[in-house]
């Protein structure tokens, strides 16, 4: 391989890269908040007793889980302004698209957590005379959340990776900036490698933490 590695050109672009990184972090963090909160609400809807609440919620989840994220983002960017005759700035639209996607996946994660709570705990709380809302709040919820946390965090990392897709609709995130620099300077190797490393550096600590968390839960369960 005869290729002159040259990382010097990157030094001139630190400012750009930093701006892109800020956008990426913004997208990832805000859509995570949206996804965590709304996902919980959506999960409650799917578990509700009323069919007319359950069914649309389920449809929402299935639609966001069975279509590509890229398509969801592109749809948002091109169709929402047209349909609703509004202008929303790109980053907010990105947050919306990613946030709603994460909402669907997190709703499933919460639901799995709730369903993983053994039946016996429900029985026990009835036997102890707890009212339904008490057993939900003090018995089911804590356990459901504990088992859901690793999945929620994994979903969170996944949204960080998916956020790179907004570059395709020209939102100035880290990916977009990287692509611009790479094409302008004719140096794809250094640039893309660096971008990949940055994403990796962002997600690896969280992924390791999730693994540690899961190991701890396994030993706790085994006891």
């Amino acid at each position, binding site marked *: *391989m*005869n*290729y002159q590695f040259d990382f010097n050109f990157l030094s001139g672009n630190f400012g750009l890269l930093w701006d892109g990184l800020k956008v990426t972090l913004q997208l990832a963090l805000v859509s995570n908040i949206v996804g965590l909160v709304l996902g919980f609400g959506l999960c409650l809807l799917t578990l509700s007793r009323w069919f007319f609440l359950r069914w649309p919620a389920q449809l929402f989840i*299935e*639609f966001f*889980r*069975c*279509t*590509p*994220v*890229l*398509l*969801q983002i*592109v*749809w948002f960017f*091109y*169709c929402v302004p*047209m*349909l609703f*005759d509004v202008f929303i700035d790109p980053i907010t639209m990105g947050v919306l698209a990613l946030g709603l996607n994460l909402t669907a996946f997190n709703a499933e994660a919460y639901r799995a957590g709730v369903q993983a709570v053994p039946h016996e705990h429900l029985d026990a709380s009835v036997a102890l005379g707890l009212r339904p809302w008490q057993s939900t709040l003090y018995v089911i919820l804590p356990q459901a959340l504990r088992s859901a946390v690793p999945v929620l965090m994994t979903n969170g*990392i996944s949204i960080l*990776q*998916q*956020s*790179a*897709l907004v*570059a*395709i609709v020209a939102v100035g995130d880290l*990916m977009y900036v*990287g*692509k611009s620099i*790479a094409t302008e300077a004719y140096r*794809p*190797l250094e640039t*893309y*490698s660096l*971008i*990949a490393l940055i*994403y*990796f550096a962002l*997600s*690896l600590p969280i*992924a390791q933490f999730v693994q540690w968390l899961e190991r701890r839960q396994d030993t706790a369960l085994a006891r």
Partner: protein
Amino acid sequence: MNLDFTVVFSYWQALLQGLALTLVFTVGCAILGSLCGFVLSLLRASNSRWLSVPAGLYVELFRGTPLLIQLFWVFFCFPVVFGVDIPPYLSVLLALTLYMTAITSETFRGALKSIPGEQHDACVALGLASWNKTVFVVFPQALLRGIPPLLSNVVSLFKESALISSVGIADLMFVGQNISNSTARPVEFLSAVAVIYFLVAFPLTRLVGVIEARMLRRYAY
């Protein structure tokens, strides 16, 4: 603003061709990726650190970076690194396969781990040698337990394949975007594309659940 969904039908051929290409890439990379993923999971489970550590690193790398950047890296950097010109569809095939390998190796690893320890005890009690144990007891059970999550991985790959449109491959996403741009009807066409993806992914996802319930209950527990 007038929405007219009937225009979609006049382009059904182009959309179908896009879908066909998407499916070709999905199935091809699913098969290749699963095979490689199985081998990789064996490497990760190996006792030699020379094998298990790089294998583990590979998986972390491909799961910890966006698929888009993996795609771009293979597409733009591979020719530079290896000094050869790779046709676009091959780059895409390679990138998706590398990604799928990482994902499926995790699936197989989980399946291997889920086999109860007592199965290994039973093999010792019967005097089964290591090789026989792996081939006749561990491998079949790992495969059976791995099929439902593996199918989920394939469905994920089907969705992620939409990214190949960004490097100009004429898959369903690319075709849909093209038509929506040229007809200036994004709502109709992008929604139609969404429905098509949904109509493939949703039944498959349901199928995974059915397989899990029926087959596993019979042969795995």
